[in-house]
């Protein structure tokens, strides 16, 4: 055992233990750790955005005489107008600008990447069967997509063939949820493993890093 003397590792380790103490029950140590985290995170973001976004992208060009930057400054300030009821309507201008820009940019890109390319991926062609396993998976994907879409088709009652397809659709959806849940468990466990590696390694020196 080779416990570190680095004060920052001790700080991180004590805070980790404070947060883990919640697993037993809520307590003042946990509350302290939680509040400290929220405060530090907010402070970090404010300082980071000031030094890396607002200052270089707005205030430095303005102070260098590039007055075109008054336009984004005004648009940004208009967001705060909603706190003054008399001029709260001004907030619509930057929102309209953001939505217009965002929609114009996103809609074609979204259709291309999320709709057309995904549809292409669902289409089964003779070339798909060049590899038999690949062909079988392509058929399963096609059935899965069709049945899942049928499940969300509410214009007709889910009876007969439509009912069977819709039930198959819900099975595909449940398999999807199950896979997502399994991955979420893996992600959360990974975070625990990471913290345990930190406590056993850099802090207590029990394992090699």
């Amino acid at each position, binding site marked *: 055992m080779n416990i570190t003397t680095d004060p920052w590792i001790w700080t991180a380790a004590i805070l980790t233990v404070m947060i883990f103490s919640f697993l037993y029950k809520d307590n003042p140590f946990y509350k302290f750790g939680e509040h400290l985290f929220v405060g530090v995170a907010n402070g970090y973001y404010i300082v980071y955005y000031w030094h890396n976004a607002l200052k270089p992208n707005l205030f430095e060009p303005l102070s260098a005489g590039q007055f075109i930057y008054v336009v984004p400054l005004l648009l940004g300030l208009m967001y705060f107008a909603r706190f003054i009821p008399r001029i709260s309507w001004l907030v619509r201008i930057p929102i309209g600008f953001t939505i217009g820009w965002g929609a114009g940019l996103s809609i074609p890109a979204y259709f291309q990447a999320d709709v057309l390319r995904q549809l292409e991926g669902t289409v089964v062609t003779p070339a798909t069967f060049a590899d038999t396993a690949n062909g079988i998976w392509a058929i399963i994907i096609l059935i899965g997509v069709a049945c899942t879409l049928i499940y969300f088709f509410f214009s007709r009652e889910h009876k007969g063939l439509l009912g069977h397809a819709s039930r198959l659709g819900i099975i595909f959806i449940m398999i999807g949820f199950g896979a997502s849940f399994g991955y979420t468990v893996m992600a959360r466990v*990974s975070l625990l493993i990471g913290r345990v590696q930190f406590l056993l390694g850099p802090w207590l020196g029990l394992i090699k890093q």
Partner: protein
Amino acid sequence: MKWYDRIATIDRRIIYVLLTVLVILPFFVKVSIPQRIMPQTQRLFDFIESIPPREKAVMISFDYTPQTQPECHPMAKALLQHCFGRDIPVIGLSFDPEAPGLAIDVLTRVNHEIDSLAADRDDSLTYGVDYVYLGWKSGRIAAQLDMGEAIAGVYPRDYFGNLIDSLPLMQRVRNYKNIAIVVIIAAADYPIDWIRYPQTRYGVKVGAGLTAVMAPQYYPFVQTGQVSGLLSGMKGAAEYEKLVLEHGYARTPGTAETGMNSQSMIHILIMIFIILGNIGYFFSRRSKKG
């Protein structure tokens, strides 16, 4: 209380203790649970293998946060070892404000590791020649699109304040034409922007290393080829570490590979508890009906 009621209402603190024991145990007791390489991990590895040395660069977008470090840091490390091992230059950048510190940490570690093993100056890494870190930028969609014209237009200076044109690597990497693939190592939905915008407009190849929570969302993009390879959570990181180790780009196993032993044991425990909980629920429901 009946036996089935008891197994359905196990005190959560007992579960936590068992979880903790199983996480710690593999670090002290040699447990070796074999890991099969998933096809999407192999695809990313093969893609990097296919890039000719000293030609196009690999762009890595470090977009993960300290809380997801156990999953993403090993991915970044293994990927860097692979690129540097093959003499492929790396350009790092970030769109998550929490990421630059982690990116600098992993780049510095890998740089020191390679330098300590280097036989001569040619084998060691030089900042500005072998790799560059551009830093963080706000407004990521506009930045990603503008880099298709000129990276220097978006990042006139690197993270350390050097003029981009003064760096030898950036004199030959001007835009996406000189980039073989962009690999996004992220804890949030960052890769989708790279797929929707730079890929759609400039045909940029995209790879991803994601936390396990995010990964399932990207499987459809792997199937269509929009994502050229995917590392899924700690498992993906462990698989890539294994590939990098087997091919001689690393000397020692990585942290994810060690962590996966704990991961596998916990998965078995969770499955046992799910089965026990269901048995308890099934029998208690039957006794209530009876």
